[in-house]
């Protein structure tokens, strides 16, 4: 069945799909185009120019915010992916009592609304008397990165032929050797996928970071938000475009890697 066959042309299907994609991408395209605006306005076009990008590059605050985002994202990814890999390995195999519950706990950050997580994490830090800083941001990020790293790793593990490990044991590999020579190579695309996902999620996070960031510990999204609060400006257009392009490149890369390893 394909759309060339008129039998399958359901009414309204095409226009809806077109609307969907235009609706989805128009704002992004407009934003990127306007970031090259030569004039002072964020929306009125006044010639092509790269000047806003150079403004951004020279703005120390932006650069520092970007650095903070990168530091947090990298550390959070490393920690979360390691924890998620261990957890996925632990969850593999015959079902045991309480496994569903444990799976539920691992997925909790996905279920709880972001604002609730933000509030509760803030309460927690206040309760234990931990001052808000880049470190508190890191902790919060590790927590919500874990499920994002976990899902692709778990999926990859489930897809692995369970007899491969038995074959390895049958061929004199101890459990440790079997892990390194069989499980890990087959798992690594999933780990890479999970890490990339966690990285993007951490870089993009706003709500939770906003709540638990200390003064001076600004990440890029928080910086953007504060800027928007002060008023729309082409500079924000430029920063936003940079972030967009990086995210899209990342997603494309991760997709490509995923397709190849199949």
């Amino acid at each position: 069945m394909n759309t060339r066959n008129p039998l399958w042309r359901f009414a309204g299907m095409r226009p809806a799909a077109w609307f969907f994609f235009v609706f989805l991408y128009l704002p992004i395209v407009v934003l990127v185009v306007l970031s090259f605006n030569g004039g002072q306005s964020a929306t009125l076009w006044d010639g092509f120019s790269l000047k806003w990008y150079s403004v951004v590059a020279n703005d120390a605050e932006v650069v520092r915010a970007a650095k903070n985002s990168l530091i947090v994202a990298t550390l959070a990814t490393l920690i979360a992916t390691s924890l998620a890999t261990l957890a996925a390995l632990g969850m593999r195999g015959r079902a045991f009592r309480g496994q569903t519950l444990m799976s539920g706990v691992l997925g909790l950050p996905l279920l709880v609304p972001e604002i609730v997580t933000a509030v509760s994490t803030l309460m927690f830090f206040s309760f234990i008397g931990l001052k808000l800083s880049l470190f508190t941001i890191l902790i919060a990020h590790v927590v919500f990165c874990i499920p994002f790293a976990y899902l692709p790793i778990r999926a990859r593990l489930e897809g692995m032929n369970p007899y491969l490990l038995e074959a390895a044991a049958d061929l004199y590999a101890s459990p440790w050797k079997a892990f390194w020579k069989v499980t890990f190579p087959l798992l690594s695309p999933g780990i890479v996928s999970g890490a990339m996902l966690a990285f993007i999620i951490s870089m993009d996070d706003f709500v939770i970071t906003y709540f638990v960031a200390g003064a001076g510990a600004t990440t890029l999204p928080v910086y953007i938000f504060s800027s928007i609060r002060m008023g729309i400006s082409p500079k924000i257009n430029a920063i936003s475009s940079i972030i967009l392009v990086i995210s899209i490149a990342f997603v494309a890369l991760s997709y490509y890697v995923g397709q190849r390893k199949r």
Partner: protein
Amino acid sequence: MGNSSAISIEQLSMEFGDPGQGVKALDTVSLEIQSNEFFTLLGPSGCGKTTLLRLIAGFEQPSAGTIRLYGEAMQDLPPFRRPVNTVFQSYALFPHMTVAQNIAFGLEMRGLSKEEISETVTRMLALVKLPDVGARRADQLSGGQQQRIALARALANRPKVLLLDESLSALDQKLRKDMQIELKRLQSETGITFIFVTHDQEEALTMSDRIAVMSKGRILQVGTPTEIYEAPANRTVADFIGETNFLTAEAGDDGVKLSDGQVLSTLTEHRGPVTLAIRPERVSLAADGQLLGKVENVVYVGTDTVYHLDVAGQGGFRVRQQNRDGAVGGYRVGDQVRVQVPTAAIKVLVE
């Protein structure tokens, strides 16, 4: 129980789930498998044959009992310390390694030198008649080729016993028959004890030196193919191996009487209710036959014609006649016929 037995199974039990309430996959099974033997575990699904194989390999721990390899108890050893190797049903070749790396895996784990490994891999590929595929990735081969590589990978380690878990069931008919001959050849060439698991009784009869027929976690009979086929120990075995006709009868002093009064002579000394097991190919339709029946159905299967008769009120009594003279239409549905039943063809089963 001598040390000459390659594998000695003593009172082995396997229960899944909580002790006492679980599913008994194996129920106090005992067995001796000899050196240089092609031994087959035969039975329908769920009979415990695969469980038994996995216990020998070490992938499961028994609930009770002992497994000995040439006299040494081995059930406490993990699989990577048992000198037995397995050919898996799904082959389980490592997809991220080449064929050569797959075959070399066990040798690497045991720390053999690079030269030895390389030489063995080449030898194994020649043994399974696939000398050129060494550099290919394991998942690029056809099913039949994968099967042979799985075999090579296991044999490369010169195990004392080779375990094969329904390894031929994924192959198509012709390939399967070729592999059956191959396996038999490999076993006699290498002299390694093969333990083969299958649910296909024809396959078992073709390849085995001895067969253990299993059902519901128990061993029903152990013997050579001839013994199992010609002298089944009970109705279950007789029914599972080949085709059998069963007639309920009463054994008396002057012969065995069927429910409609017909009498057949047998060699039995038993008296009382019995079941007669008669193979369809051992009887024939003849004018001077002792048994009376009525033709219900005539089935032409190319090499033979099978007549389904109603005998003594029971339907489904099959007589298999070879079509030596081609597809000659002899008898038709509704005909009254006589069946020649040699005394030796009647197995009397007392349940």
